[in-house]
């Protein structure tokens, strides 16, 4: 996208500011969103984004600017403005910008651009009829498909350059069921890096069927209880518990600011022995995967917690320098308009040995939280919440009545020590994670697991 010769010029101009590090991040992106509601394709949007972000790091400070163009004159203009934010004390560097090679392949088989909008619309219609055929109680189906093709060029004063392209596809179905005055919802999504071959894993019909099943099942829901209960957390999206309770607190920017309960805990036991947690951006074709992070480093598989012992933080270039730790390949940004931050990729609790049925059988009076609507954490205190969207009572080791949506609330370090059993049914689910106003693709994962006690926020008292 940008010639190396020109990139060097820009990087050196930025370094004239006296900065320690300079960077160019150019991006070209085509996006499509198609939305079906009321059994109609309501809208189709196509977007084209092109631009370039420039960054200087000087000691502890980051200076950032961007332009909606990749024309060299415009980039140079922006570089001059950015440079003037610092004092000039020239420091040029000889750069040869070695091109980096990706560590693995993630080529799309059916690229979004080779797939017509009508073909994509067909997938949405299939999803719509699948939900509506499931039950006459389904009153509304909202289905959407988003795809993007992305090309990036990164060059940094660390003497590297990266050119990479990738594509992503995401589909979500929200089914609404109604009975009398009651309305319930069911939501299912699938997402991956790559192309429309994603639907070989799970068809739009299956996805939609699941959403409809959930919505209809919840029509029979009784009030959720309140108070502390043992909670069996279902596989896949259940991984949001680790994402919130621990993952965010391991992001190195919180560690640096003394705003994480996991500060100074490397090498210490912070979780039950049955917990091994991994952040792996190299899982081929997963939603949170990438070949290079947004600072041009190769993506990595990082074991964060091994048998309950904390091994690693999640970092970007700046935080790795500050904490004097190895780069973990976790710098991520929403687009060229944003500053990269240390973020999770595909984060999961690794598979265990127990059988999911046996874990449920072991609970006398508790909750089975099967699906979730998301969560939130305050990394400084470790307090987190996450919402159950499909849950059931467990009575005498058997799953019984469905319960209405309820929030689970707890404290990260406490909960990690209350994980008593981890099953062998590891699965993943895609999501979007927001931090510092930026949303990035994130996958969570886990097998079925048991938490000995968690506060369930129902209305039944």
């Amino acid at each position, binding site marked *: 996208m940008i010639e190396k010769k020109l990139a060097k010029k820009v990087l050196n101009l930025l370094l004239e500011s006296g900065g320690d590090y300079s960077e160019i991040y150019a991006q070209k992106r085509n996006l499509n969103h198609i939305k079906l509601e009321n059994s109609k394709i309501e809208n189709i949007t196509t977007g084209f984004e092109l631009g370039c972000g420039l960054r200087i790091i000087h000691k502890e400070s*980051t200076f950032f600017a961007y332009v909606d163009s990749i024309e060299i004159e415009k980039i140079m203009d922006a570089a001059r403005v950015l440079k003037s*934010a610092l004092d000039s004390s020239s420091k040029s560097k000889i750069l040869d910008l070695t091109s980096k090679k990706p560590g693995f392949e993630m080529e799309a088989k059916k690229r979004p651009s080779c797939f017509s909008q009508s073909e994509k619309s067909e997938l949405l219609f299939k999803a719509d009829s699948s939900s509506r055929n499931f039950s006459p109680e389904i009153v509304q189906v909202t289905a959407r498909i988003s795809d993007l093709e992305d090309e990036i060029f990164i060059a940094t004063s660390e003497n590297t350059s990266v050119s990479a392209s990738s594509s992503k596809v995401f589909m979500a179905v929200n089914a609404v069921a109604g009975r009398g005055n009651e309305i319930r919802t069911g939501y299912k999504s699938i997402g991956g890096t790559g192309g429309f071959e994603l639907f070989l894993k799970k068809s739009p019909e299956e996805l939609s069927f699941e959403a409809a099943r959930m919505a209809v099942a919840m029509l029979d829901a009784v009030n959720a209880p309140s108070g502390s209960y043992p909670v069996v957390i279902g596989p896949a999206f259940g991984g949001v518990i680790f994402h919130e309770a621990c993952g965010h607190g391991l992001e190195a920017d919180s560690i640096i600011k003394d705003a994480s309960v996991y500060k100074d805990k490397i090498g210490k036991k912070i979780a039950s022995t049955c917990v091994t947690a991994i952040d792996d951006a190299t899982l081929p074709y997963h939603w949170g995967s990438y070949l290079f992070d947004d600072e041009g480093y190769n993506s990595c598989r990082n074991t964060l917690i091994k048998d309950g012992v904390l091994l690693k933080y999640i970092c970007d270039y700046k935080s790795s320098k500050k904490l004097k730790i190895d780069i973990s390949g976790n710098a991520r940004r929403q687009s060229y*308009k944003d500053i990269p931050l240390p973020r999770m990729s595909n984060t999961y609790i690794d598979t265990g040995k127990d059988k999911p049925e046996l874990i449920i059988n072991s609970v006398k009076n508790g909750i089975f939280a099967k699906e979730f609507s998301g*969560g939130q954490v305050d990394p400084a205190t470790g307090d987190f919440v996450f919402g159950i969207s499909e849950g059931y009572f467990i009575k005498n080791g058997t799953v019984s009545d469905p319960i209405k949506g309820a929030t689970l*609330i707890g404290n990260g370090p406490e909960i990690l020590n209350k994980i008593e059993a981890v099953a062998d049914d590891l699965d993943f689910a895609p999501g979007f994670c927001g931090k510092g106003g930026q949303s990035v693709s994130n996958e969570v994962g886990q097998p079925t697991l048991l938490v000995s006690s968690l506060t369930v926020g129902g209305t039944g008292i």
Partner: protein
Amino acid sequence: MEKEKNKKYSDRNTDIAAICEKISEKVSKEKVDQWEIYGAAYSHNEIDLYKKEIENLSFADTRGIGIRIIKEGRTGYAYTSNLARDAINSCILKAIENSEISDPDENNVLPLEKEDLFLDPEIDDDELFSRKILDFSTHDKVTMSRELENAAFSSDKRVSGINNLIYEDSISETAIINSNGFSKSFKSSSSFMYISVISRKGSDVSTGDYFDYKRDPSFFNISDIAFQAVKKSTSLLGARKIKSLKTDLLMDPFVGAQFLNVISGIVSADAVQKGKSLFKGKIGKKIFSIDVDVIDNGIMRGGMATQPFDAEGVPKGITTVFEKGVLKNFLYNSYTARKDGVKNTGNAVRSSYKSIPETGPSNFYMENGIKSFEDLLKKIDRGFYVIDIMGVHSGVNPVSGQISVGAKGIWIENGHFAFPVKEVTIASDIFSICKSLAETGNDLKFMPSGGYTGSPSLLFREIAVSGN
């Protein structure tokens, strides 16, 4: 010492209206029934401060356009952040292509003047754009940020750190031009300051945040931002769980505003028409048991969501959503108004030029009651003063109406604060919680949340609080 120069915003009009005009000349030659061009230009400056130093400093000067095409009742949309000729040409083509694939709907028509509920409002340009924002250099903003940090540390010894300290401002210009002859633009400014404070006592940690949001930074009361954040954080030190019970709930105005933000989604005509609103068929029904008014005021003086016209160019005005607790009106954009055969309330919103107009609130608030916060407090024998809630996006289902969110605050005994509480949830559902609203305070406060949402302190009776 920082080395940044005195960069200020330059006072210039962006050429976004002219760009839209130029594009319109091209689009009008295409074989389409209707077209609309939405352009946005935006200058933005953000400073994150940490330990007196700039953590991040960013500048942006950005533009983008979105093109909506209607052809035989089918809508297509495309946008581009790049305004080079080729990009614009392919954007037009994409919008037309997309319109050929979406399904037709007779209500897909651009707004018509005769469908407007309101006349063009008279809003002073100064009301939306404060020229004073041009007087502040990056250096001034960094200095203000440092003042805020100092004020936080010096106001209480228990303050141990700052989670986030953000100064952010922007100048934006929005232009809309369409095939019905509409062509207008407006300019606005905003500045925002936010601090999240960490305080400690022994091994106990607590956080608290506060903000200010105005047309320019000269309105900021820095010591108050610091004071409020520190008070929130330190008042929760030593917090504990309580036993599950049903009890009175006193919501802080900002918590109330988050509740009203949920309500604003449920009164959107779009949700109602698609069977995703519990308020469907409830116009004229008493939803709150007390006589409260809830207003969507698109032209409110001092309202940060105030603008002359909505995201489709329809005049903004004042819509009474609830009057004396009775549901009166839904909020409409052009599509939903035509579908219901009613006048358009001017509630089309877009998050940016990247999206088609949807329906949403502007300055949306519950009117003040007459009692002071202290009066409300005195009315509570045993109850929970909720200072902060967590997990609204995951714990409130606006479609089913179920509410279950994390909460922290202070336990109340005999009209007085007793001890801080954390790690509990509050749970209810939309109809029940509206019914259990018993009193409103006279301390209306607003916060940015989609629109600009406001609430006084709210007293609810008998709400489920879950703890041990």
